[in-house]
């Protein structure tokens, strides 16, 4: 299965707004800082890592669960695409 970067971003955004922020209307941008911006806490970040594993089949090792890989939707998308065949690399 191939997935474009924009599809991944959209799925991440929907999940974060719905399941974590519990506000589907939240105007979250792919550049918004999630952890260091105080939007999602460390427990929710783990939930998000579990979602990424289930949805995209990409496991984020413990050591990569940090701001460099996970602080924005863009960073997460890059990280997912590293292991996912895509027609539309970022």
């Amino acid at each position, binding site marked *: 299965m191939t997935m474009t970067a924009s599809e991944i971003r959209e799925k991440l955004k929907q999940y974060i707004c719905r399941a974590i922020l*519990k506000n589907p209307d*939240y*105007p979250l941008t792919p550049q*918004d*800082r999630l*952890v*260091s*911006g*105080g*939007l*999602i*806490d*460390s*427990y*929710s*970040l*783990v*939930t998000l*890592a*579990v979602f990424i594993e289930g949805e995209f089949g990409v496991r984020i*090792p*413990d*050591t990569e*669960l*940090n*701001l460099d890989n996970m602080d924005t939707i863009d960073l997460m998308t890059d990280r997912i695409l590293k292991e996912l065949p895509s027609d539309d690399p970022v």
Partner: protein
Amino acid sequence: MTLFDASHYHSLAEPLQRRAQEQPDTPALVLLHSGRPAQTLTAAGLDMTARRVAARLLRAGVQVGELVAVGLPHGEELVAAFWGIVYAGAVPSIFAYPGPLMHREIYTRRLTEFAADSHARAVITAPETAAEMRAVDSGTRLVFAPPFEGEKGLPADWSGTPCPDREAPACIQFTSGTTGRRKGVILSHRAVLEFVDALQQVVRAGNGDVMISWMPFSHDFGLFAGLVYPISVGHPTVLISPHHWLRRPMILLEAIRDYAGTICLSTNSALQHMVRYVNEEGLAGLDIRSLRIMFIGAEPTLLSTLEAFLSAFQAAGLKQRMLVPAYGMAENTLAVSIFNPEQDVLADWVDSRALCDRAQAMPAQPGDPGAIAYVNCGRATPGTRITIRDDAGNGLPDRSVGEIFFTSTAMYSGYQNRPGTNPGAAGWHGTGDLGYLVGENLFICGRKSDLIIVGGRNIHPEDIEAVAGRVDGMDPANTVAFGVMDEQLGTESIVLVGGFKRLPAKSDRFVIEKTLRQRIYEAFEVTLGDVRFVPRQWIERTTNGKLSRRRNREKYLRELGRSPAPSQLSLPQEDNWQS
């Protein structure tokens, strides 16, 4: 095994030094990190590293009794820094380390503020943070960084800087909070040694006990129960990096299996976290039958959480008798009361109406209308006495709700730099928590203050409001913060409500919300659970015009159609306290 006897020791340094002499090569600590093999430290090895730390501090001029702040990640260096400071006769205070989820420059700023606020003479932190701190701090305090390997240690026969007095401070535990509100609880060598003695009596320690903990050392639970207790009585302790545990919660139970753990530390929200992530794969081959005691503390424990945890892990050998809720605070070093599963029942069902109308915890049957359950926090620890008092300070009978007071041998000496805050001539400490006794058993119903407890960390709503009130667009006079219990997370979540004369446009509200979230995270490393913007008249006030966090919380829950958690019911006296 020789039992630990507090009266044999003068200083907290001595139990480790004795252990290093008597059992030099037995494993004292096992450190578990992500992506690295387990690291085992012997008592002699830890003693040697602690001597090197002490030598470095003493050579640089750190004096007996001076505070040394520690901001290090989980690991050998953190453990050695704590004991090394104690060896030097100085006073350690461990500042929470955020792991990889905070930008380093923000952490450096917070640690620098903490060091200034707490009047620390020196700081021990990671090399990069140390370099940044030296650059901004104009030599007002000493900054050290590991490694300490090259350090020429103190001689092997050196028995530590003489402790001037058993009542001298052994360490200071700081509460969360901004400058001015942060309180440093001073614990003497006597208090900590007596705590170790008391805990040993409760757990009836024997050969073969192994402690397993994921709790950070910045928290009194992690420091005193996870590290100081097992080192002092001579048990091995397996210490999991908090960040590693967060990502892989099952590792706590796997460590019980792998190291034949008998005593384990957890919190209500940690139990929920494990329940959330358990799956068949995780349960396969999991056997935790070696466990004797799982202490659950640091935040309100819910019966529903205990039931969910028991049901999720009974296949692995978990039994109800292993669950041991406890109640405590740094002012008593750690534990005030601990549940005794052999003698007492785990929960008390009471009628919430009698509680709200008359502050009486009248027995009810599960399933009765209005019946709620409080988890039994157990009996006073050895050396501690508990009373429940009304507002006038009179003792209350069984099942009457009032403020919990205690006095004990493990009690604090006062708050740092706050003269007159010692526990008082009579030695009783008013906890600010509300509860009742049934016989010797203590049940916690809530708090007099509006303190919010997020995953075991105490957050003052005043601090949140002060930071939020300074954000552009917010009206500080109409900004209110309170905690609501999130049963799914098993802990409280912070709600911030901003009142406006004229509500900003929706797009502006999102801009304000983003700034609010960011500022609060940077200041306290907590996340706001919900942010609401309301017309000014929505905000509830007391009769004399002050913001009432309790009434705003009730209104917020009412509008969402939710009922308050048992720990957040409104009791009849509350108006007296809050008006």
